């Protein structure tokens, strides 16, 4: 986890986590060239697995250019051209987190470019949906892009950061839906469990946001505790926090835990 201290890997291992799945995302600043992305993908595929392995954690990742850096289409084209070289790395699960941020035409263009890349290389897709007031519109636009590419199998796509107003749209389209646990925006543990109780456990999973902002690497274990307090059975908790991610990610032959 490039944005976290090593102690977070240790804390996750102590809490019973078995693996980390790290999406390629924004660095908190715009990279000045495609070379910056090359180094970043190297960090995700070489350095971070070694850092996680010190605590017995398996490290998997996704590669892409994120939506926050997609306004510059020329840069995005250069970066997308680098990605195929990394898809064969042993810990790369697919293309992600692609998606939209401000729902612009250029972001959409770069999203379509990367959906095409995923289809061409038969990769799983992890999708980021926009923040706050932009989420609903962005989710609809993303679903349209995925629906329009007939090569994309809905079950090969997880759409992340769903909330009460977008989860139904995602599940109805046949995709997996991820609930990102985040202290200030996105979902709290209590709301995530409300969504599970409303929509069922079939294609939903939980993930801890572990980024540059105020976030908590132990959000998933804490939500498991919250589920227990609400009377959920141990098997149901295991299904949501472990078996479901395993089922989705197991569609990539490199995912083994």
């Amino acid at each position: 986890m490039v944005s976290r201290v090593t102690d977070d890997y240790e804390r996750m291992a102590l809490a019973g986590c078995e693996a980390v799945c790290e999406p390629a995302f924004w660095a908190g600043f715009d990279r000045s060239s495609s070379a910056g992305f090359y180094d970043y993908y190297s960090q995700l595929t070489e350095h971070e697995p070694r850092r996680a392995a010190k605590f017995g954690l398996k490290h998997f990742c996704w590669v892409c250019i994120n939506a926050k850096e997609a306004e510059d289409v020329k840069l995005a084209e250069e970066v997308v051209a680098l990605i195929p070289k990394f898809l064969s790395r042993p810990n790369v699960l697919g293309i992600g987190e692609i998606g939209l941020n401000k729902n612009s035409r250029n972001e959409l263009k770069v999203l379509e470019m990367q959906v095409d890349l995923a289809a061409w290389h038969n990769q799983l897709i992890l999708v980021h949906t926009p923040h706050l007031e932009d989420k609903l519109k962005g989710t609809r636009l993303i679903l349209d892009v995925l629906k329009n590419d007939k090569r994309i199998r809905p079950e090969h796509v997880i759409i992340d950061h769903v909330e009460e107003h977008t989860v139904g749209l995602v599940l109805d389209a046949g995709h997996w839906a991820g609930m990102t646990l985040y202290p200030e925006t996105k979902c709290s543990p209590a709301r995530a469990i409300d969504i599970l109780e409303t929509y069922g456990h079939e294609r939903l999973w939980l993930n801890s946001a572990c980024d540059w902002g105020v976030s908590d690497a132990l959000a998933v274990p804490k939500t498991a505790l919250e589920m227990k307090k609400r009377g959920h059975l141990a098997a149901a908790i295991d299904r949501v926090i472990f078996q479901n991610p395993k089922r989705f990610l197991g569609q990539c032959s490199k995912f083994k835990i």
Partner: protein
Amino acid sequence: MVIVEINHQAQIIDKMTKEQVLNLYFLDARHKLIEVAAFLDRIERAAGKDDFRLKAFHAAVGKLNGTQKEKARRVLLAFSDPTKEPVAHAAGKGAVGAWPGRND
């Protein structure tokens, strides 16, 4: 009751009673509601003009009254951009939490 499918078998677990929900979440919800009230008081005491965010906030608070279900969803929709066309260019990267174009 909540129906949960485990190993392809539907299992039923007890859903919390209203009393259990209150025991688990009332103090937390009370605390958050008072924070909202204090925020609105703070805005009223402050000088200057407010903007579309406060308007959206009041619209969202209005979704809490009454017997309509899916209140969290309705609140989120009150803050959301309802338009469908992509914007020409991304003006910055951040989101502010409310859509500036709402008129209600």
